[in-house]
């Protein structure tokens, strides 16, 4: 189908670079995944979600457990001691290399799926490689997967495969792949609303018989999920309790750069200014503990408390806004009819879905309860799919998300050995990654084909001075946070630099999010459509 031959050398290079991180710092997630290898290989399926020898119990959906079971067959052969349940914190050299290699294989999978997708989306060969490079060498993935240790890359590969099915206009298949993906890692529920509304608009209500269409896609997705959960249907309460541990605090130990990071920061500042003696309140947050939520107790010292209901309402409101906007998308009727039946309408659908996914993730990342900083990948990676087609200034907004998001991940790597890498990565964010940015489609090329009304909107491309300024602050905060612990006064106020980084990254990201949402609510449809046309008829 595709000529995958050119991907082979690229895959070898990718393996070489990612494997270099083998001996870098690895977080407790390494032990988590080793434990899951042991649990899934040594205990019965019924025991998987009950077994609790280690504190790192299995808390991902079943597909991930099956995946670990599959890996365990090889792991047993590499080092049998690795798959012993009682062998807590076992990390022989063979174990480390084996687990690192499995992550790198996930990266290779991501490479192939990205190549397949971008070969459809972008006909220019050089631009394909630029886009692929941005995805597989995504700095966030480098930090979270290759060093910190998680398996995200192959999950995003599944997401891209789902997108690929959309580009082929096989929406049911795309839905099934997405259902499989959610049964791997439930954080992908962040983009489930996007899939839901997209399916409703583009598949259910676009067909002649909406009821039958809904039944088709509903059955397919439900059957997939049921199949994945089949061995655990009798103990769903246990499984769900593991997957969704309620009772955690509003923010994680290190505040993910979202609205609540700014809110917490404001609370801390007000507390200092007004000299409020708080017994519990925000101080707990700033001490970096995973704070538990106790209903009835105030979460903040000065500002009003944020209860789960408030967070839920904000999230739901955001999602409703997104859905409404998408349903009423400007220029929808005429342009969509124009697109239908042409060979590039599948491409248009991918752009649309990617933007929806990013928006949905943005809503969850910004407003939902107990967000992890790693969740920024959920925003950044769907946006990478779009980078090929958006107007120049918006592609800079997307790069801004990647850059600020990556910087906000720096506290994950806190040991001195990774400090030089963080410095190099910061430089790379501004000097190396830009080389892979595609040449954006020039404004003039579009203005010749788009309707007059739309073209006036394109003229209002924002100036990014404030964005640059905030990003600069984030860079300074991230670098200072990285070296703070090694400075003579490093013991004093250890969490102050973390707060500074959270707050600056939050400001930078929220501004970029606002620009993206503005883009979606104004020029989105026409723009994407014309880009998908132009992608196939370059001027």
């Amino acid at each position: 189908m595709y000529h995958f031959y050119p991907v082979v050398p690229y895959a070898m290079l990718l393996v070489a670079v990612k494997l270099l991180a083998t001996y870098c710092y690895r977080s407790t997630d390494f032990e988590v995944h080793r434990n899951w290898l042991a649990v899934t290989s040594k205990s019965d399926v019924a025991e998987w979600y009950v077994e609790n020898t280690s504190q790192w119990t299995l808390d991902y959906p079943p597909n991930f457990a099956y995946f670990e079971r599959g890996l365990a067959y090889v792991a047993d052969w590499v080092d049998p001691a690795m798959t012993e349940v009682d062998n807590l914190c076992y990390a022989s050299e063979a174990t480390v290399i084996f687990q690192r290699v499995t992550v790198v294989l996930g990266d290779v999978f991501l490479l192939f799926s990205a190549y397949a997708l971008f070969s459809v989306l972008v006909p220019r060969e050089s631009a394909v490689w630029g886009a692929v490079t941005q995805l597989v060498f995504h700095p966030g993935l480098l930090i979270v997967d290759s060093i910190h240790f998680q398996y995200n890359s192959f999950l995003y590969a599944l997401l891209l495969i789902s997108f690929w099915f959309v580009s082929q206009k096989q929406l049911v298949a795309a839905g099934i792949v997405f259902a499989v993906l959610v049964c791997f890692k439930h954080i992908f529920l962040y983009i489930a609303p996007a899939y839901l509304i997209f399916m409703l608009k583009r598949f259910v209500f676009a067909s002649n018989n909406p009821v039958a269409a809904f039944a088709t896609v509903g059955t397919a997705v439900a059957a997939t999920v049921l199949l994945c959960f089949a061995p655990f249907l009798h103990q769903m309460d246990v499984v769900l309790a593991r997957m969704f541990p309620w009772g955690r605090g509003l923010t994680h130990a290190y505040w993910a750069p979202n609205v609540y990071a700014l809110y917490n920061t404001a609370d801390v500042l007000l507390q200092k200014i007004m000299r409020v003696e708080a017994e519990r309140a925000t101080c707990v947050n700033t001490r970096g503990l995973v704070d538990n939520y106790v209903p009835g107790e105030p979460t903040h010292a000065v500002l009003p408390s944020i209860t789960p209901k408030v967070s839920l309402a904000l999230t739901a409101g955001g999602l409703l806004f997104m859905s409404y906007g998408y349903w009423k998308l400007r220029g929808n009727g005429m342009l969509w009819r124009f697109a239908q039946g042409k060979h590039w309408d599948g491409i248009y659908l991918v752009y649309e879905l990617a933007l929806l996914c990013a928006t949905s993730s943005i809503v969850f990342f910004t407003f939902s309860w107990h967000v992890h900083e790693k969740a920024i990948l959920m925003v950044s990676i769907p946006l990478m799919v779009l980078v090929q087609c958006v107007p120049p200034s918006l592609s800079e907004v997307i790069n801004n998300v990647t850059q600020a998001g990556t910087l906000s991940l720096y506290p994950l790597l806190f040991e001195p050995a990774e400090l030089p890498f963080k410095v190099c990565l910061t430089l790379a964010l501004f000097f190396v990654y830009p080389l892979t940015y595609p040449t954006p489609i020039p404004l003039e090329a579009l203005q010749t084909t788009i309707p007059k009304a739309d073209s006036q909107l394109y003229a209002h491309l924002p100036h990014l001075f404030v964005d640059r300024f905030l990003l600069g602050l984030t860079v300074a905060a991230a670098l200072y946070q990285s070296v703070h612990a090694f400075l003579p006064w490093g013991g004093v106020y250890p969490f102050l630099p973390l707060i500074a980084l959270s707050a600056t990254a939050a400001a930078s990201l929220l501004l970029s999010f606002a620009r993206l949402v503005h883009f979606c609510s104004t020029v989105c449809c026409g723009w994407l459509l014309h880009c998908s046309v132009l992608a196939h008829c370059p001027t």
Partner: protein
Amino acid sequence: MGRRAGEVRNWRVIVALLVVAMGIRSLTIMHPHSGEGKPPMHGDFEAQRHWMEITTALPLREWYRDGPENDLQYWGLDYPPLTAYHSYLIGAVGHKTIPEAFALHSSRGYESYSLKVFMKLSVIFSELLVYFPGAYYAVTGVAHVKLEHNRHQWIALAMLWLHPGVLLIDHGHFQYNAVCLGLTLFAIGAVARHKWWLGSVFFVLAVFFKQIALYYAPAFFFGILALCLQSRGGVGNVLATGVVVVAATAVVFSPWIIEQDWDGILQVAHRMFPFSRGLYEDKVANVWCSVSPVLKLNRLFEREVVLRISAGCTFLSLLPGCLCCFRRKYGNGTWVAAVVISATSFFLFSFQVHEKSILFPAVAAVLLPVASPPGVAMNLTRAVAIITYVALFSMYPLVVKDGTHVLYVCLSLVTIVFVEFACATTPVWRRGWRCVLLSTTAVHLVHFTFSPPSSHPDLWTMLFCWVSCFYFIAAAAALTICQYNCFYDLKYSSKVE
């Protein structure tokens, strides 16, 4: 306008390349190093640390002398003074950061996370200060045209900054070869710019950083001699260069000279040239080691005789290449080829060769395509890429000893991709490269799958030596023949672009 845009792009590509090279180095920090967790002697990492301990704790006159405080049997300082000064500088910083790691005597065999990070960082900083600018200076110096007009220069710069051998030895095994190589590259760049006095100063510094730079000495001697004689001034230039060399040497040894410690200088020289050691260390891909199953030179002759035989063979093999420098108005290509031939001859035939020594011919060879006429540059790039791969392969026994397998696999993958998809693009080269790739892969497979016969436990290691030695000899012979056919001379090839 277009020119300015081009310049901006150059600047950005150089910075990007630098950041990538640094980023890759930063990921190697936690890789295993030589002798990690292997008491009592450990390895080169411990040697370097020990020198920092000695140089910071003892007065200069005792650095090279056996004494109550300085046991030369335990990694005694046997590198020239510049290495000692370099150790002193790093040790001084180390005393401020991790005092217990450099305390006299008590720190022997000291290992810790912070020491490892500190030492690896010292390599990265030394490289950043000497090797990176040196490589840039050499590449732009030996080239005929400006950087932006020639992609071979970009390739050469990338190959030097990301040289797999340097990464494996300096960042994996742990040594400071890159400083010596950087000084040599500065010297090559200076001589190629016809600044022979500057070149001789840098070369003297390189030699007094690590005596192995003497591998290049014949080429520098003949090259600079020819350059002096052929330019205005003639014999006067030669005398001036001699004065410069003596002056530079005097500066390097000034602490001893000021104290009038002539014995000390002799002791340094004695430590620098340990002729009492063997013909080669471990298993090396050179001629003496490869023929050892049938012809054991050490057992046949006295040490004196062996020394003479090896020196004689070395000079016989390097002389033809070096004498080419006396052709009228030789070009940079001829001279760089002479440098490579000289280093290769030393590696193949000289006394006391380590497997790491292949780094010295391999790094100099990267400059060959840039220095040669454009017509032959592509073929030379291909040859150099393949030889770089073989050089990496020849160091595999060291990889096994140090446990740096992961680094080795990564570097081999990158090199293979580069050769396979960017270099071996014509049928002839493709066939040659397949031959190299198949033979090396076969050796790896044999080594990986079977255990060696109990009667010859070193047999698999010898396979590595034989295969790589074969390719090295072939490369050296091809290089010399090409040298004689004026392959590298601008005059005889197509005109400059």
